[in-house]
């Protein structure tokens, strides 16, 4: 059925339209000012972009790994075959390399980072702590590729000549220190990662320690505790935040690409020895993405990216929540 006279709007609908416009402004701005409403809508749109970006990243990677997801299913995670020629792909060697190199990095980095943070917050005089804080932060400003360059030409030779031979001599009966000594492999990758995540962990631990109320320290000191015993009280107080900092460091180590790619040897194998070359998820993406000519090859690489995205996303989210639980609670209490 057609309406013969659609052109003239009835008064009621005109008022309705005006009321809608008015509501739109009201909803966005309590003052009802058009400029405010537009301003807020634009800012809101930009903030919404961040949300859409995360959604788009997941969607794009899921869509482009469809082929591999369908072909290999969950077997992708447990297969250790990576053969572009036959078109069979499994992620296990990369998952292994990523986990071992990251844990190795944490093993080296966590004690040092805690030491740095404790020194800067609890011990150093102000005129010493400020420049040292800046210098440690500069470590975080060095690009990954530069760490890689340094790793290839300085760290790897040093490890090959002065560190790995004695390790093999004394601890060679352990499976971790067997095999040929090349200076390129899991150990070197782990140590480079450790250097790279130390400034990140120590910066967050520093914030966490600074957020622990000074009364805790005064109470411990008043009971006759030594400086180190006081520090232990402070560390115990900030424990969730410190855990968050360590997890944050883990997330960085897992996703670190260039430096690791340059020193870890890039061989898809699972070996107990830390001297053997290995491969990480991020490294295989960096190395093989431009070579992936077949659709299934590219799809498998994108699926690796999707896995890496989800893992680092969850790790980062957990770390943020832990850190916030310490810094937000105490700083909020101190302010009000």
């Amino acid at each position, binding site marked *: 059925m057609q309406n013969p006279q659609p052109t003239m709007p009835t008064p009621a609908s005109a008022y309705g339209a005006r009321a809608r416009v008015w509501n739109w402004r009201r909803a966005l701005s309590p003052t009802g000012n058009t400029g405010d409403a537009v301003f807020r809508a634009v800012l809101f749109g930009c903030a919404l972009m961040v949300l859409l970006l995360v959604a788009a990243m997941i969607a*794009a990677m899921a869509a482009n790994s469809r082929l591999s997801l369908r072909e290999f299913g969950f077997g992708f995670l447990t297969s250790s075959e990576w053969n572009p020629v036959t078109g069979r792909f499994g992620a296990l060697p990369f998952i292994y390399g990523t986990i071992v190199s990251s844990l190795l990095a944490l093993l080296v980095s966590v004690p040092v980072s805690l030491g740095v943070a404790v020194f800067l917050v609890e011990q150093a005089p102000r005129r010493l702590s400020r420049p040292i804080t800046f210098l440690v932060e500069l470590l975080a400003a060095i690009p990954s590729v530069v760490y890689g360059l340094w790793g290839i030409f300085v760290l790897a030779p040093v490890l090959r000549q002065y560190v790995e031979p004695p390790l093999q001599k004394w601890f060679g009966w352990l499976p971790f220190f067997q095999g040929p000594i090349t200076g390129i492999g899991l150990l070197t990758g782990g140590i480079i990662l450790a250097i790279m995540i130390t400034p990140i962990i120590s910066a967050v631990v520093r914030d966490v320690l600074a957020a622990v109320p000074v009364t805790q320290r005064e109470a411990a000191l008043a009971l006759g505790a030594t400086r180190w015993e006081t520090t232990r009280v402070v560390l115990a107080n900030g424990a969730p935040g410190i855990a968050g900092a360590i997890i944050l460091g883990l997330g960085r180590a897992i996703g670190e690409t260039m430096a690791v790619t340059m020193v870890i040897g890039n061989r898809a194998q699972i070996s107990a020895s830390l001297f053997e070359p290995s491969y990480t998820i991020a490294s295989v993406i960096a190395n093989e993405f431009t070579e992936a000519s077949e659709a299934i090859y590219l799809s498998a*690489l994108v699926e690796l990216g999707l896995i890496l995205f989800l893992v680092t996303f969850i790790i980062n989210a957990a770390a943020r929540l832990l850190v916030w639980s310490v810094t937000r609670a105490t700083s909020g209490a101190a302010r009000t």
Partner: protein
Amino acid sequence: MHARRYATNAVMTTLTAACAFFAVAVLVLILGYIAYRGIGAISFQFLIETPKPVGEGGGIGNAILGTLILLAMACVVGMPFGIATGIYLAEYGAGRFAALVRFLTDTLTGIPSILIGVFVYTIIVLPMKQFSAMAGGLALALIMIPIVARTTEEMIRLVPASLREGALALGAPQWRVTTGVVLPAAASGIVTGAMLAVARVSGETAPLLFTAFGSRFFNVYLDQPMASLTVQIYNYAISPYDEWHALAWAATLILMTLILVINIAVRFFTRRKI
């Protein structure tokens, strides 16, 4: 009993100090070695020429130009979104939506940058069937947005509420208060945050590997592959030639100088402000 407690105290405080000096020592070692290896290979020719085959020298002029163009693109695209998001979080950031956005920006800064490269590859390089400077610039912009957003929010939050109240009391609408009073008050902080974001993305390599890709020629076209300092360093570093290794160190010295100058300038600038 007492002796042991004091001994523990002495040992542990020494150890923590040792950790701090160890970290600083590593920094000095790395920077020192870059300067030592890099200075010898730098010349005027090196700064303006394009890469050449082994044995013929060559330079990084196109890579320097490429990095500057990529950074400019990243700033043009990333800064407005980052700053606007930061303003939103600071000025309208009480609700649940803002909390979610704040959480996502924090989480995004921890997402491996190579995945930004994968994402941009799938949305730009695949449809265009070509590596392009555009894709590289977008990848860097996406890395920049969360960093800029968070520093902007923090800087705006430092602006005292009395300034806003004063302006509102004079009858200014909210948007005039934000753009005319709050932003100028926070401007220097926002600029320093933006500078640090530029320093951070100027060192990014992984997201450029399969977006901007790299090029052996001077290129200013945004739909063509483009060279960058970091990718050039990577290619030289993993090559088997000693001569190219020397070029990698020299290019690294240039890149580190840029990054250090920004960091130290920001440091100097903020200390005088506060």
